[in-house]
């Protein structure tokens, strides 16, 4: 089928990184002849840059199409087909995937370039440089497959692929056991979410097959969904305490299953615990996978399934509340962390909570807007923290930093832009996207307790500003707290690192102007029909809820958010610049509370006691020692062997006398018996 909607270059956006990864893999694992440094750089950085160029070309073509036909497709082959079911290896490039593809390839390219500088001095192991880029390219392929997939099955392939690459890259320095443990933790927690995702796919497919609309393709799913929108399911009796029990809308159940997957991938309560530990990986990995791209896959998936969530108000409310609670919890934990990457990790969890809040309130375009701006400023912050860590020779504890502003001025400047952006100071990008999210929470009358939702989101804005400025001051302001030897070696990073920082700094500064709401642009004299450009561009791909809201309200909300952020900044400045002796006294005064927060509310320990230890105990005691070693090895395998041996030595051995004539007698008797039987 060749029509205006077919665009055969789409496949190369996805396949180029795969090709690069395959070349690396063949040269490393098969030929065992690693490529030279420059060949590795050109191959690995070239693939994402080319993908970005192709994605941009696809965007230009997309923009020429009318709004109701604004999508491009590219079908490679029928991946699997059985009866009425068929899943194609096909890609869909609509406004939603266009935005995500550009972010993934754009930010991804910058981080690849940065990685050259970051991993160059890494001689911890043989061929680490090329192995790193092999995984990075493979990750990019999986992420692009996830984003561009035209159906749920292909999306799940990418979904698992990014999980695998995340595992490989967190445990990249596997010689250290802790890193390997963190990689496994990320993988296992993600698998719990994937279980929900799979069940969701099955439920949705099954329900649609019942009404003869079996499909997994997103466009067909969206068209077929009204057929099952009114179906209900009856919950079993032991779930009677749930709100709305005993009958739920089927879409709510499916939506919750999908959200479990999203919560695993995007680190939401209760599955957020893996992300802070994922910081064990190299810093570019934290920037690319655990800040800018992979962790937003859950948000992307919820937005991609917006046609489902539009019919599932219950699931949407759960998403909004989970999001805002995660945002608050992670922000509170971030306040008491001293590891520079841990602060950023909890900040990522918190910002992801914001995105889910928006998605749960039906403001999908606001969620995606925040995905984009967050990708810019959080990648910038992580890469900046990587530059600091390199400058400090792999020291991550801000207790040993301070006063770095004078020694690494450029890193300080770019990091500062990121801090301002995440704190939501206009005109930096974070302000615009956060403002839209707060607005959507304020207007989300369909969600129970939306006033509290808004209040919590607002409080998180203040907390965010506070902990980010705290981090910034502790790193760059004040007196140096490390050893004098460390101090002597602090140095500005190489150009490979500074150039991506500069570009991301520019994006963090300007990114918000992709789609400021009409209230802000009318003041600048922009035609209202031309504003909200980002939301309008995305609208054909999403099933969001639209609110008409006066410009005065928007300005008032923005002013309120700004005031709260400003208060957070002031507090941080007061505590860490003007009265630097205060934090220690406050810590001493509220000792127990501080320990509770600094230890992340002991959630890891709680999970350890509730799930990990019982699971290990059951696996070790029951499954391994009793069933595997006892029943299967002992009774089934060794037992049957012992039985055969016993019968053989006890009974059968007696027949083997070794005397030829004894055998002859047996043969004779046998022959006679046969003869008698034949003659009868």
């Amino acid at each position: 089928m060749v029509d205006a909607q077919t665009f055969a270059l789409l496949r190369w956006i996805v396949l180029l990184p795969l090709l690069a990864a395959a070349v690396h893999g063949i040269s490393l694992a098969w030929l065992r002849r690693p490529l030279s440094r420059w060949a590795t750089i050109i191959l690995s950085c070239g693939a994402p840059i080319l993908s970005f160029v192709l994605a941009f070309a696809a965007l230009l073509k997309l923009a020429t199409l009318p709004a109701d036909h604004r999508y491009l497709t590219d079908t490679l082959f029928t991946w699997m087909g059985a009866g009425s079911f068929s899943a194609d290896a096909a890609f869909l490039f609509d406004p939603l995937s266009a935005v995500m593809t550009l972010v993934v390839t754009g930010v991804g390219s910058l981080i690849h370039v940065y990685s050259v500088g970051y991993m160059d001095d890494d001689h911890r192991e043989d061929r680490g440089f090329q192995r790193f880029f092999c995984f990075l390219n493979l990750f990019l392929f999986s992420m692009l497959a996830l984003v561009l997939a035209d159906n749920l099955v292909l999306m799940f392939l990418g979904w698992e692929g990014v999980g695998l690459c995340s595992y490989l890259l967190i445990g990249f320095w596997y010689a250290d056991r802790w890193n390997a443990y963190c990689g496994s933790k990320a993988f296992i927690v993600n698998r719990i979410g994937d279980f929900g995702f799979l069940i969701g796919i099955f439920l949705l497919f099954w329900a649609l097959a019942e009404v003869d609309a079996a499909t997994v393709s997103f466009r067909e799913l969206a068209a077929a969904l009204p057929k099952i929108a009114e179906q209900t399911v009856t919950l079993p009796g032991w779930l009677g305490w749930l709100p709305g029990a005993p009958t739920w809308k089927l879409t709510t159940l499916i939506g919750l299953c999908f959200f479990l997957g999203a919560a695993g991938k995007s680190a939401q309560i209760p599955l957020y615990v893996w992300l802070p530990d994922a910081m064990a990986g190299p810093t570019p990995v934290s920037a690319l996978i655990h800040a800018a791209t992979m962790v937003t896959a859950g948000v992307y998936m919820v937005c991609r399934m917006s046609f489902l969530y539009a019919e599932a108000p219950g699931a949407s409310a759960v998403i909004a509340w989970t999001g805002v609670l995660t945002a608050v919890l992670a922000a509170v934990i971030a306040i008491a962390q001293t590891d520079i990457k841990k602060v950023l990790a909890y900040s990522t969890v918190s910002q992801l909570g914001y995105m889910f809040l928006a998605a749960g309130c039906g403001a999908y375009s606001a969620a995606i807007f925040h995905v984009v701006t967050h990708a810019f400023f959080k990648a910038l912050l992580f890469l900046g923290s990587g530059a600091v860590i390199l400058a400090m020779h792999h020291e991550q504890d801000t207790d040993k930093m301070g006063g770095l502003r004078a020694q690494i001025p450029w890193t300080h400047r770019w990091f500062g832009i990121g801090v301002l952006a995440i704190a939501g100071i206009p005109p930096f990008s974070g302000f615009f996207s956060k403002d839209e999210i707060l607005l959507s929470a304020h207007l989300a009358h369909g969600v129970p307790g939306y006033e509290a939702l808004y209040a919590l989101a607002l409080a998180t804005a203040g907390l965010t500003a506070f902990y980010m400025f705290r981090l910034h001051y502790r790193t760059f302001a004040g007196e140096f707290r490390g050893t004098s030897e460390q101090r002597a070696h602090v140095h500005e990073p190489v150009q490979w690192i500074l150039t991506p920082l500069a570009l991301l700094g520019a994006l963090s500064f300007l990114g918000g102007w992709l789609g400021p709401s009409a209230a802000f642009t009318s003041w600048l004299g922009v035609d209202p029909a031309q504003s909200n450009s980002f939301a309008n561009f995305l609208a054909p791909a999403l099933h969001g809820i639209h609110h008409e809201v006066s410009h005065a309200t928007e300005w008032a909300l923005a002013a309120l958010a700004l005031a709260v952020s400003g208060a957070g900044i002031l507090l941080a400045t007061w505590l860490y610049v003007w009265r630097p002796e205060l934090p220690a006294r406050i810590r001493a005064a509220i000792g127990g509370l501080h320990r509770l927060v600094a230890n992340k509310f002991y959630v890891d320990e709680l999970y350890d006691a509730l799930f990990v230890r019982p699971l290990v105990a059951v696996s070790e005691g029951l499954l391994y020692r009793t069933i595997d070693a006892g029943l299967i090895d002992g009774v089934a395998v060794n037992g049957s062997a012992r039985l055969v041996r016993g019968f053989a030595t006890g009974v059968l051995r007696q027949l083997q006398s070794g005397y030829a004539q004894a055998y002859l007698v047996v043969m004779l008797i046998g022959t006679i018996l046969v003869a008698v039987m034949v003659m009868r």
Partner: protein
Amino acid sequence: MLVEKAVALSAILFVLGTLGALTRRNLIVILMSIELMLNAVNLALVAFSRQWGDLAGHVFVLMVIVVAAAEVAVGLGIVIALFRNRESVNVEDSSLLKW
């Protein structure tokens, strides 16, 4: 009546051969006893062949003679090999394969 006598002789020869094969210790004697059993069968085959006027019996006898010749060649070869190794042709000395 000739047939009955021939078959009776054949049965006697066969039993003699069987007893020889089962009771004697000397490998060469056992081989000879087996030859005796084969020839008892040959006798019965020829007798029945004449009785029914069917030449198939003759053909079988020639066949058995050929096989018996081959068997003797192989059997005696084994006996010689065995004797070289153990300096004995007593079957009871060759019981390595027992448990």
